[in-house]
Structures are given as C-alpha cells and as structure tokens.
C-alpha cells in the first residue's frame, strides 16, 4: 500500500495545482476582455469611465441582466426558457390593462393602481407554472414548449393592447424603474443585489449545488437523494417571476408598456449567458460569469455609441461582437462548444 501511495503522490502535485487553478480561472475569463474594453473606451472618449456613464450602462442593462440571471438558472439545470422575453412584455402588460383607466388606450380600469405590481409578479408565476407543467409534468421538450409559449404570450399581449402602447401607468408601477436609492437608480441596485444573491445561492447553498448536479447528470443527482422534479419546478417558476420583475423595471423606466416590449431580447440573453461561460448542455458555469457576459456586451455597445457609430449599424456590430466574444471564450476556455 505504501509504495503505491508514494508513487501517486510524487507524480501528482505540479499538474494537479495547475488544473485546480484553471478550473477557478474559468470564472474570471472575461475580466481581461472587460479591462481591454475599458482602456479602448477611455481612448475613444473621456466620458466613458465617468461615473454617470457607467451607471447609465448599468441601468440600460439592468432589465436584460435580470433575464440573463433567470436564463442562467434554467440553463444550468439543462433546460431552456425562450418565453422569458414575452413574459417581460405580458406581465406588466396585463397589470396595465387591468389598472389603466378607461379612455387611455385599451385600459379597462378594473382595479386600483396599487394592484399593478402584485399582478405583474403573479402573471410571471402563472406563466412559470404553465411552462413547468408542460416540461416537467408532461415531459415535453423545453425548447419547443417555451417557443410555443413565446408566441402565445406575445399574441396575448398584442390582443389585449390592440397592438398599441399602454400609457398613464399607475405610480406604483413607475416606482422601481424611476426612483433613485443612495444616488443610483433602484433598478441598478436590484440587479446587483439579485446577482449577488444568485452567486451566493448557486455557490453556497445545497439548493444551488443541486442545480449543477441535475444539469450535469440527472440520474446521479437522483441517486444522491436530490428531489430533482421539485428543484426543476422552483427553477422554472423563479425564472418566469424574474422575467416579470424585469418587465416591471422596463415599463417603469419607459413609463409605458409597448406591445413589442421585450421582443428579441432572448437572443442577447442567450449570447450573454454563453459568452459568460454557461454551457447549453447544463451543469456548468457560474452566476458571476453570466454577469461579466452581459456586462461585456453592454460596455462594447456603449463604446460604439460613444465612438459615434451610426445607430443603423449597431445591430450588425452587435451580432459581430457576439460571434467574436464566442470565439474568444472558445480560445480561452479551451474546449469546443457543444
């Protein structure tokens, strides 16, 4: 026994510590890229690194960042939720529909304004429950189910709004999207707090770790005594709830609910998550990585705007950036993306 042990120990140390270091560094893979962007941004325009510009970047990305957080949870358990972007529109849309007084657009004015926030969140939960029913209870493919939900939910919003925009939202709906806490917009605080909570939950709670176990190998997770279905239910419903919150912030900031609110967000969300190191095959990636992913995308956009790139070209550049970022994370991550 002793001779085998010495054999193993003497061979192990050097490569072992390097492997551990690599495993930890994967989390910080985007930090160098963010630093490079910061330097480039400062060269392009001295405005870039000023506090108010950075807060501005954080505020514009806060709603979509919360979606990234939600999608990250779902991706880690090896599912997908495309319908999040429609929830962003429908949840506040239903609240506005019921609370906006008659005469202003398609509002029904059935409930007092104070109900708008609870309704928004409740709609998010209901959508999550429907998704979970289809995916977990009936065992349908999550991609197709949520693709169907994306179309249905968008259609419902168009239906109740008559394709128009809800204005004159109740004050309680505007609060989170407009108010300032300690000199920073509330939505920025919320976004940062949620990510901090996400990092803690995923990294330091049994519940969070069970997400990785399920995404990595659901059979092994079951064998370890994890109640996989219950965890999946919680994840899918939470994701929808977060999407409703994101919609609330967005409506508050814009003081309206357009029938196309959230349309097309899901592509940016997926791009940010994957750039941030979340695997589409589940069980891999961290909340911090996801945050750096969405931060990098929005910093680059900000630099482009400051550099005076015409707005018409931003879309093309965005797509290019996503591809380049993916290629970079492939090079730094070392492994092929499946």
């Amino acid at each position, binding site marked *: 026994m002793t001779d085998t042990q010495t054999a193993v120990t003497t061979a192990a140390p050097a490569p072992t510590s390097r*492997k551990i270091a690599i*495993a930890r560094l994967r989390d910080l893979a985007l930090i160098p890229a963010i630093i490079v962007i910061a330097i480039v941004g400062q060269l392009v325009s001295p405005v870039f690194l000023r506090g108010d510009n950075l807060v501005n970047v954080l505020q514009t990305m806060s709603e979509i960042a919360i979606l990234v957080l939600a999608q990250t949870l779902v991706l880690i358990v090896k599912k997908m939720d495309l319908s999040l972007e429609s929830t962003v529109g429908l949840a506040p849309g239903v609240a506005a529909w019921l609370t906006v007084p008659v005469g202003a657009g398609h509002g029904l004015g059935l409930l007092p304004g104070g109900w708008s926030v609870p309704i928004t969140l409740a709609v998010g939960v209901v959508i999550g429950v429907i998704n979970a029913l289809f995916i977990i209870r009936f065992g349908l493919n999550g991609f197709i189910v949520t693709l169907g939900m994306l179309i249905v939910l968008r259609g419902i919003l168009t239906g109740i709004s008559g394709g128009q925009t809800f204005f004159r939202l109740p004050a309680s709906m505007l609060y989170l999207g407009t108010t300032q806490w300690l000199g920073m917009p509330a939505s920025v605080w919320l976004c940062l707090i949620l990510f901090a909570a996400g990092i803690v939950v995923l990294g330091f709670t*049994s519940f969070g770790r069970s997400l990785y*176990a399920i995404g990595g190998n659901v059979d092994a*997770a079951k064998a370890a005594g994890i109640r996989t279905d219950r965890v999946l239910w919680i994840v899918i419903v939470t994701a929808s709830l977060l999407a409703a919150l994101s919609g609330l912030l967005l409506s508050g900031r814009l003081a309206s609910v357009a029938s196309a609110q959230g349309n097309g967000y899901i592509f940016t969300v997926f791009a940010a998550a994957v750039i941030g190191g979340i695997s589409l095959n589940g069980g891999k990636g961290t909340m911090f990585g996801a945050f750096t992913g969405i931060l990098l995308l929005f910093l680059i956009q900000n630099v482009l705007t400051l550099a005076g790139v015409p707005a018409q070209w931003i879309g093309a550049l965005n797509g290019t950036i996503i591809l380049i970022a993916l290629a970079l994370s492939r090079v730094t991550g070392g492994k092929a993306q499946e």
Partner: protein
Amino acid sequence: MVAAPPVVEATGVTKRYGSTVALHDAAITIEQGQTHALVGRNGAGKSTLVSVLTGLQAPDEGTITFGGEPAPRLTDRDAWRQRVACVYQKSTILPELTVAENLFLNRHDHGRSGLISWRTVRTKARELLDTWSVDVDVRLPAGELDVEQRQFVEIARALSFGARFIILDEPTAQLDAAAIARLFSRITELQRQGVTFLFISHHLQEVYEICDVVTVFRDARHVLTAAVDSLPRADLVAAMTGEAATETGTGRRTPAEHAAPVLEMTDAALPGAYEDVSFQVRAGEIVGLAGAASSGRIEIAETIAGLRAPATGSLEIAGTRPRPGSVPAALRAGVGFVPQDRHHQGYVAQMSIADNGTLTIPDRLGRAGFIDGRRRDGFARDMIGKLAIKTPGPELPVSGLSGGNQQKVVMARALANNPKLLVLINPTAGVDVRSKEFLLGKVEEVAESGAGVVIASDELDDLRLCDRVLVVFGGRVVAEMPRGWHDHRLVAAMEGVELDD
C-alpha cells in the same frame, strides 16, 4: 466469520421483463469479508442481479437480506446506501464539480450562516479520502481524474455512507496492468479492514488472482458457487458455457483451397484498439473474429468497413486498396457491412424499409441523384422477399418492425450491392431464435455464392458456422481455431485463460 450472518443473501430471485426471464430462481450468498466473484457470459443475468442487489429494481419473486435483516423498501434510498454500493463502469461522478463536492453532494456542511461552508466540506472530504488512503486532491474538478482515481473516489464515497459491501462492475476493463495491480492491492487492503466485495469480471485470470469464492450464472440461473482454490479453470469455463452442444460444424461445403483472397489485412494497428493484426479471407470463406466486448475485434471489423482508419498497416479488399477510413471507398471496393448496434448505426428508425434498405445504393435508384420511387420500392420488395421480412409493405417505417426483422433490413442493406466481402458485427444480437437461424443461413448462402465473410462476435452460435475463428484478446490475435473447436477452448481463449489440460 462463521458466526456472523452473511453480508447479503439472495434466495429464489426471479425477475422478468415482459416475456424475457432475466433471472430464474437465482441465489447468491456473500459472507463477511469475502471477495466474491460473479462471472457469466453476456445475458447470464449478472446486471439484473446487480440492480436487484442495489435496490434499483424489485425482484418479482424471492427475498434479499442484508446481515440477516430483510432489505429496505425500494424508495428508502438512504437505507440502501448504508448497506450496499455499486461502482459501475459508467461513471456516476459529476465531472464539472470538485471531488469534494462529489463526495458530499446533497449533504454539504453548512456554516452558522446557513450557507455551505466549503472549507468544512473540503476538510471532511480530505479526511474521508485519507481514511481509505485515496490520494486525490479534493479541489480538483472530478472530470480531471483518470479512471483509476475515479473508481477510488467512488469507493470512498460508498464507504462514507456506511456501506461495507461494494459491488465492482468490471472495474478493470479500462485500466492498464499497473493500475489493475494498484486496484487489487487496494481491494485486499480494504478487505482486511472488513469491506466485502462482489467482483464482476470477464477476465477469469483476475478472479483467480483476488477472489475467494466464485459464483457462476448462466442463462439467468445460478449454476455454481465454489471456493476459487478448489475449482480448476476448466471446470469454471465449463460452468460458464454449459455442457450442451460441444462439437461444431454443420454439413456445409468447405471453401475452395485456392480461392483468391477477398480480404488481406497486413500488420494493421490502431493504438488503443488493436495491434499487429494480419489475416486473410478467401472467397467463399467465413472467418470469425471472436473476443470479449473490449477485445478489439469490433474495431478490427469497423476498420475493414471503413469506419476507422488504421494507424499503420495495409488493407486490401478484392484486389483494390480502398482509402483507409472511408466508408464510401469500402462500399465501392465491394464491402457489405452490418454494424455493431443496429439502433445506433444500423438504420434510421423513422424512415421506411425501402429507404433504409437502399441507403447504400443511391446511384442505382435513378439518374443524377434523383430517386425513382418505383425502382426503389422494386429493390425493397426484392429484399423483403429474399430475406423474408415480415411487413405489410416496403413503405413501413423500420421502427414498426420486430428486432429480428429490423436486423434483416440491416442485412438486406449490406447485401444490396452484391458484396464481395460481407462484414458482420454481432449479427444476431437481440433477435429471436428463428430470425437468428434465418440470418445465419443467409450468411452461409452468401459465402456459398463466392463472397468472403467476416463475423466479429462473441456469440458461439454466430461463430459455429465459421470455417475458422481468430480469437482476439487485448487487441491481438492470440489464437486461430479451425472449424470443430470445443466451446470450452474458445471461451477460455476469449476470456484470456490458459486451460491446463
């Protein structure tokens, strides 16, 4: 040791899946501190017994006791985990998580704040591994471990639940000789500390090396349990193969002595699969490649069919040298191929019999890449007739056929281009007896008409019709047996044992 009740005892266990009987009135008794071997050929019921013993499935009949007490309910996973653990060939480790987390998955240590205290988890993991002398850094992602380390970690995890009875399912299959030696010394060490092992292996040599007692299963039944010391190897092999049908050879004609070779493999090697393989197949000859699942025989057959390219050596088929590693080239050279697993490589389940059967001959179905439906269905009807495929018509999806008929479609496709060399891997796996006879009869017919045939299989029935059988073990051709071999001899060679008579 005599006084203590057996660690585990199963009696009268029967398990059926539909009409198949996977275990029939089987029994096994494993005493405290033993290392007990469980051997048997494929389909003998070993894996069913393991899933019954580990509480993954309930037996239809029979009882299981642990240390004299009845087994816990199936849903009480914790109770099962305290009694028994199985280290499978397929890993149950989560590669993205660290070793420490894998050891304490879903039972992490929480600090005062209610959050996981990673430091405690790591410390406890390190203590656990130290207790059982497993030298692995607990901070490593488990995916970085090699097979050997992973097995040790899984064993340590099992022990940490309190289980002192561990099933090792072919633990040596993926290990090299040095690692096997280390594993064995570890097993001996743990045995001394009171751990009982059930050791499942295809390598009888290993059974003799480390086991005390051996139990043999055959055809879903318990055949024999004996102390390893007092059991001659020949008797063990005989118990595994059974006494019936010892002489081989049907009344088939022998191939012409000087027929031209249709296959010449010379000094071929593929690292990790096989090395130094040279053999010839003459026209009209049937040659068997026998060997266990990981022996390399499948890789050799796949090389001939163009699925793999050999690293060195040459391959000549019917006088031409097809580009190595190219299936189209092999097809053009005249190879017909029945792949290893029909579900994975044999057919497209949703496509019709006609489409599946003609996949290899698109150029004969019409001009310029277009497919003439009538011509295709003509081919298909021809196949259905020749191979007696039971179907209402050629348009039925293959998924609607029985296993035997599905295999016939795969065979039909292999025969579609009138091959000069037919390569078959496990051609009768999972088909019923009548389809099996039919398929093997067809193979003889093809050989009779002048094609060479290679059958890579571990089924004795498949190999019986071969003119000669090459036995592959550990990637090398270790023996050649002309027709008329003795079952015991062939099986012994396949399992890598020397019979001492």
